[in-house]
């Protein structure tokens, strides 16, 4: 590098720095140049694929929830009654007493965006596409549970047969991943379908340019909206343009610069700042599903000793973490489920609390003492060192560094390594970790089954507990919500008795919203906006 280039570099940096100030002062609002019926919406990551039957990201559902209708809809908190299923594309349904057959009576007035009619044959084509191994479905197929077959009874009656009772089926059918696509378009586009999606929803899919934008436009003929919409008929907005903002540091800035009207996942400290600004609102949406937590590998010493695991749990000051890193926007989690999830129970103090003296007592009882005075306890010459795997999402590096200090105080050393998601999956498969983060969202507590049942590949705690397996296995077969909730309460307590994870916080999506946006609500999954009801002023 010659001197000349060095000076050029300095000038360039100085220029960028000064330009930064102008960017703040001059309020450039490209949004206002657009007609008032176009909403700009900021997405936070660029999904690798956006076919809802194939791909699994929450990000794809944010735009596509408004492109597809589902057989049923799930009501959400402000609506009464909350967490119930209401008719969508199905006017009514019956469940056989043995829980093996679901019969849906479909609406007769529904047309796909390409003009083809929606009927029982379309439902059959969709479900058969999802369960076809060639589709390589990452999420939709799991929502169908023990699906066996689908049967067309007449043009507007369809029956789904299961091989075992599966209570979460309606919840699955209410999700965008089981949205009903036009069989004509599916056949026409094949693997390219994700760029040419056709549904029945309030918005038509117009264009998707990966890493750049996704546009949906109003379906003028929409007249079959579910009860959870605030009005029947077409949406208020003409067009919604989604753009990608993968860098958290740039999100609040983009919102303030007027690049978007709505931005998801605003970093908590920026959210605090935006709350002071009358031009914006922060809509915090609790996300149902798992709490953000670190799964403990119960097969790998020293974590094979439940006393050591409980000591870690009692040494964790979750309040401190939530206050420092999440700005107090998220409740501290006490168990494996976030408090927005159906069936969630808060854990009693006996199971989960911040109690360092008790943590120290448990470690000493387990035989860990600091004899060489280096601040780390050891037993039989083996220091109490843990290998923590991190990923870059969810503020995990920050969380883990606070855990490091908190655990250091009781003589536990936590080493950290940051991995990409595929590398972390590989580590999870081999079991060479002590702690690994997990945070999947979903509205049905049955998501505990894939993550804690001993038979599941995602059981990263590697626990194999007959009591827990029995609870999770039985709960997914019951149809009575109250009876299910009771079983899930027991399952959550069992998980914390065994200390299979260190819960940290309930995920909350901090949406930054321009004050001009009216009527923005989110559905029962938490992630997905109901764009049909949104207006711009």
């Amino acid at each position, binding site marked *: *590098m*010659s*001197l000349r*280039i*060095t000076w050029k570099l*300095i000038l360039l*940096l100085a220029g960028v720095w000064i330009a930064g100030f102008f960017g703040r002062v001059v309020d450039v609002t490209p949004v206002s140049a657009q007609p008032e019926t176009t909403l700009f919406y900021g997405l936070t990551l660029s999904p690798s694929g956006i076919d809802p039957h194939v791909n699994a990201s929450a990000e794809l559902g944010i735009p596509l929830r408004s492109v597809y209708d589902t057989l049923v809809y799930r009501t959400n908190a402000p609506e009464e009654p909350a967490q119930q299923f209401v008719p969508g594309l199905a006017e009514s349904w019956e469940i056989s007493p043995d829980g093996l057959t679901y019969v849906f009576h479909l609406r007769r007035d529904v047309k796909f965006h390409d003009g083809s009619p929606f009927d029982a044959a379309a439902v059959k084509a969709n479900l058969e596409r999802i369960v076809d191994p060639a589709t390589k479905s990452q999420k939709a197929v799991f929502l169908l549970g023990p699906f066996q077959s689908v049967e067309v009874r007449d043009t507007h009656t369809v029956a789904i047969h299961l091989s075992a009772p599966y209570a979460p089926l309606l919840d699955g059918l209410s999700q965008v991943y089981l949205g009903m696509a036009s069989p004509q378009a599916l056949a026409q586009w094949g693997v390219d379908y994700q760029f040419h999606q056709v549904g029945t929803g309030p918005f038509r899919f117009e264009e998707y340019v990966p890493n750049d934008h996704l546009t949906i436009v109003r379906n003028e003929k929409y007249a079959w909206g579910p009860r959870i919409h605030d009005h029947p008929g077409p949406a208020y907005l003409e067009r919604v343009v989604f753009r990608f903002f993968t860098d*958290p*540091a740039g999100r*609040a*800035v983009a919102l303030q610069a007027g690049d978007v009207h709505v931005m998801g996942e605003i*970093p908590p*400290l*920026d959210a605090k*700042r935006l709350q002071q600004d009358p031009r914006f609102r922060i809509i915090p949406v609790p996300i149902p599903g798992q709490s953000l937590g670190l799964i403990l590998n119960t097969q790998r010493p020293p974590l094979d000793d439940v006393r050591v695991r409980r000591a870690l749990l009692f040494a964790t000051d979750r309040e*401190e*973490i939530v*206050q*420092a*890193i999440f700005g107090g926007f998220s409740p501290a989690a006490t168990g494996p489920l976030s408090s927005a999830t159906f069936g969630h129970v808060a854990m009693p103090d006996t199971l989960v609390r911040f109690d360092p003296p008790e943590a120290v007592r448990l470690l000493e009882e387990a035989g860990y003492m600091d004899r060489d005075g280096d601040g780390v306890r050891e037993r039989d010459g083996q220091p109490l060192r843990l290998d923590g795997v*991190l990923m*870059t999402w969810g503020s995990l*590096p*920050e969380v*883990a*560094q*606070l855990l*490091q*200090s908190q655990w250091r105080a009781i003589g536990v050393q936590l*080493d*950290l*390594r*940051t*991995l990409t998601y595929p590398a972390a999956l590989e580590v999870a498969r081999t079991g060479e970790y002590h702690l690994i983060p997990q945070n999947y969202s979903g509205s049905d507590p049955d998501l505990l089954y894939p993550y804690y049942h001993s038979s599941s590949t995602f059981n990263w705690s590697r626990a194999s507990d007959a009591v827990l397996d029995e609870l999770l296995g039985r709960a997914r077969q019951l149809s009575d919500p109250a009876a299910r909730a009771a079983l899930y309460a027991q399952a959550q307590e069992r998980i914390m008795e065994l200390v299979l994870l260190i819960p940290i916080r309930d995920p909350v999506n901090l949406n930054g919203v321009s004050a001009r946006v009216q009527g923005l609500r989110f559905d029962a999954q938490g992630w997905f906006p109901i764009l049909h009801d949104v207006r711009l002023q």
Partner: protein
Amino acid sequence: MTPLRCWPRVWCVLRTDLRFWAGGSLICLILFAVAAAPLLTRHDPLATAPASQFQPPSFDHPIGTDLLGRDVWSRLVWGGRLSLIAGAVATLLAVLPGSLVGLLAGYLGGKVDAVLMRLVDMALAFPTLLLALTIVSTLGSGLTSATLAVGCAGMPRFARIVRGATLGVRYAPFIEAAHTIGCPPSRILWRHMAPFVADSIIVLGALELGYALLNIGALSFLGLGAQPPAPEWGLMLTEGRTYLSVAPWITAAPGCAITLTVLAVNLLGDALRDALGLQMRD
């Protein structure tokens, strides 16, 4: 051109060069701060205190505190040790084996040269950082593997340049003479050829240190180098970036430290180059 440079004469040129004094004093200042870290800081660079997060610069915290309430100044000077040592090690890793390969290829010529240089060409086809990224993803992330990766990625450039310099003297009369009086090849390499290419190695080495610091910082910035809570400069940049609008000092401090160190090393390298009268291919 004489094979052995007159060092006092180099000094005569250097001491009138402003770049030498600016770069040199900056380097001395940085080295002093880093070496005297325990004397200059009052806080443990790893001690968290979430209650005092994002404090602006004050007497107690000269460059404020970060998200976890850690003293940024302590992290900066303690972290300097990590960054500078990693940079120096990576440079040595690039310089020593790279020069050896270059010397051998240039001296032996023929098939050895052809094979070694085709391998070097292959490695040079990738941008340095991309090559380092590839190596890190095989070795697994961590400061050690990042240092190794950056060192290895810098090696081919050295091999290429040292080979060029060696070829320049390969057929010089004094080498022919050494052959004629029956010097063994190892003696010719070390006593007659190595000193001749030494000055280009020194100059390039200084510049390489700048690249190495930047590249290790870049790898840490991407999460592939130093792991939290290490106060490595590149990692500190990443950590502060999210809070740029709330607490700019967290990012500014390591950013300035990297910029100043690389600038100082480059100034020094440029001054040395001119003093030694070398024409570098940039």
